[in-house]
């Protein structure tokens, strides 16, 4: 994460919460005692990011400061502290690779390299058509299915290889990518299939998959 907000993109002039989101804003503020409305800042930043293509423009921070009656720099402090708030556009598909040790041991470096080659950009960059943005993050908590990337802050794509990740990206562009394991594994079961408790399963009449 870099604090210095990059200036090579345009900041929208205004930001207003949509009608539906305004209702949510009120709900969040109502959660806190009167005079403590500033506590809702994180929720509002999240809402703004969701509403605004996955990133928070300056105008939104100003709007939030106004709504919550707090100094603008205080909103900025929170927005820059948490890495999950994006302060610059992250493309239509924000791909966050986990590069922490378990994923790295399982080959995340190669996966990243394959993507970089396929898209022609490096980590921290956006493709010229604005479709993809690549970044690296720390452990996503899905190490069992390493290597892993997170899509637009929500879905995990797991069990990646330099080969299948390219297909995932193409599918994604075509709008038909499916999150989860890309090798067909069910949840976090062992790669080699079940290795223990075969007998018990048989006794209980449970059908084992793979």
């Amino acid at each position: 994460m870099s604090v210095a907000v990059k200036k090579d993109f345009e900041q929208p002039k205004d930001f207003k919460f949509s009608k539906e989101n305004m209702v949510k804003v009120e709900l969040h503020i109502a959660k806190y005692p009167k005079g403590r409305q500033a506590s809702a800042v994180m929720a509002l930043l999240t809402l703004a990011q969701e509403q605004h293509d996955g990133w928070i423009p300056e105008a939104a921070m100003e709007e939030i400061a106004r709504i919550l009656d707090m100094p603008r720099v205080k909103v900025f402090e929170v927005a820059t502290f948490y890495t999950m708030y994006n302060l610059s556009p992250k493309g239509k598909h924000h791909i966050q690779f986990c590069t922490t040790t378990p994923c790295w041991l399982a080959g995340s470096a190669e996966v990243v390299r394959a993507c970089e080659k396929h898209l022609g950009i490096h980590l921290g960059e956006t493709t010229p058509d604005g479709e993809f943005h690549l970044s690296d993050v720390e452990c996503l908590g899905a190490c069992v299915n390493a290597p892993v990337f997170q899509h637009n802050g929500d879905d995990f794509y797991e069990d990646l290889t330099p080969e299948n990740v390219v297909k995932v990206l193409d599918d994604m562009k075509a709008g038909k990518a499916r999150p989860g394991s890309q090798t067909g594994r069910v949840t976090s079961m062992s790669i080699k299939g079940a290795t223990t408790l075969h007998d018990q399963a048989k006794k209980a009449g449970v059908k084992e998959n793979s």
Partner: protein
Amino acid sequence: MPKLTIDGIEVTVEPGTSIIQAAEQVGIEIPRFCYHDKLSVPANCRMCLVEVEKSPKPMASCALPCGDGMVVHTQSPKAKQARKNIMEMLLINHPLDCPICDQGGECDLQDQAVAYGYDRSRYEEEKRAVTNKNLGPLVKTVMTRCIQCTRCVRFGEEIAGVTELGVIGRGEHLEIGTYVEQMVTSELSGNLIDVCPVGALTSKPYAFTARPWELRKTPGIDVLDAVGSNIRIDARGGEIMRVLPRLHEDVNEEWISDKTRFAVDGLKNNRLDKCYVRRNGKLEAATWDEAFAAIKAETKKRTFGAIVGDLADCESIIALKDLMKELGAANLECRSDMAQIDPKHPAGYLFNTTIAGIEKADAILLVGTNPRTEAALVNARIRKTWLAKHIKIGVIGQKIDLNYPYQYLGAGPDTLAELSEGKGAFAAVLKNARNPMIILGAGALRRADGGAIQALARKVAETFNMVKDGWNGYNMLHTQAARVGALMLGFVEGDEASWSKVDALYLLGADEMAVENIKPDCFVVYQGHHGDKAAHRADVILPGAAYTEKSATYVNMEGRVQNGLQAVFPPGDAKEDWQIVAGLAAALGHKLPYKTLPQVRARLAKENAAFAHVDEIQPAKWTPFGKAGKCESKPFGTTVENFYMTDPVSRASKTMQACTDAFVKAQEEKAVAHA
């Protein structure tokens, strides 16, 4: 009350005292960076670690309240080691640029690195760099030097009341910044330079001009407003390099306003360093003898009146009064801005509550004043009190931009009149307050009905029982350093009839008056230090000394008598002011009864006994002041249009010009854009 032992010394302290404070009480200094006794305690630098017996780890002494029976070691091997380690961590990202850093020689980090650090570095990895911020024309930033103590952020939030600085990012990327990129708009921003323990925030105008060990430090008194801030004047040779605050808990604490700090470069420009005499309509340089002779030629045929300006010292005021008496002139005036202040009753023109007394108030009514621009440090006290107790504050006058919330009551005397009858929106607040205060801006009396307004304010004070045993909540807020002293010395004499006969004026630095109203055939003597408005109208100019160039007495708005010392010599032929007056008196054939400074001061004390009590407040008797009469409904105006330029010194200052361009004009443009 907890009793504890620090380094073998037993000490009993108030409950809630932290160990760092307790140590201070017994004369042990614990090193610190983030802790500042006027700011909140974040305990984030860990430099103040000490060993506390029975606790497994070293403790941050700034955030640890004293407990009964604690045994604290500040010099044990464990404490020393802890500090060494912290120092090593702090220096990881700190650049090794002391030789080119303005803080060098007065840097906490430098000093403490020498005292507590390792003498070599084990760090071989890359250091981080942080981009500098633009905080405006006063504060220079070199952000790579920042150690993230957050003092500046807390100062902005807690003292200056402008939350513009913040802690941006986190971890290794953490840095101090403003919202996106913006200047810090506070009239106290210069204090950031003092609170920053390292060279991250330094003075822009002073940059690379001097090293602290070259400077001669002289204690002085500021005259650019009526607070009487205690200052330290740092000079090298004959040049003033900078002004810093001097601690005075009852006046300015340890802050000064930006004007006080940065206007001194105005002392180098536009100075009067020679006598001038007008010959054939043109001012020509002259000697002292020629100038005195020119005055002597006029004294016989003319009737003199004397007007004291805003920056005059008490010694020259009394000398001028004595001279005028010798000349038989009974026309004296110190209210050059025509404020209708009742000169006879000190209680009516003093800040009776005292500046430190504000902290005891629980409701404040501001009338016709903007303390933020008129007396920034009084405003800081009000804010401090508001922050501590959330007191109620009401404003009558202009809708102003204060850095605390207030209730707007109305624009003019009508609202005040309503209040004086115990009615109106704020009446209940004042009635229920234990220590209510009213602060009347002296600028609000610059109108024909000024006397009546003053009387009305007195009535408000009486209605709400603001004056009682142990509490006087009636206050007048002045903007001129000379005003209260001159009033106390009785420099108001003559009535309309006697003034109408005046055809010669002696102006003692009177620049804020309506010079254009002086009759064309009037003979004008101007004594002062800047070639400002009044000097251009003068027929004879006598070059005087500015406040840094004379040992002089000033009285602040509370009635506090303070002495400043001479830091440098006045330029050219210019002289200390009371000596000029005494010299002129001698040339005119009169002798003033004093030759030395102590003798003038004795004369001051004879005129008003309060002058014998330096730095003491003499409570004023409550006597009925003001004038009976009706007030017009005309709203109160603005007293200070531009905080950065209020007097000849700040008007001649390039730095103040830059501030005007950066802050005032920017704001005006914004206002235009909004409209």
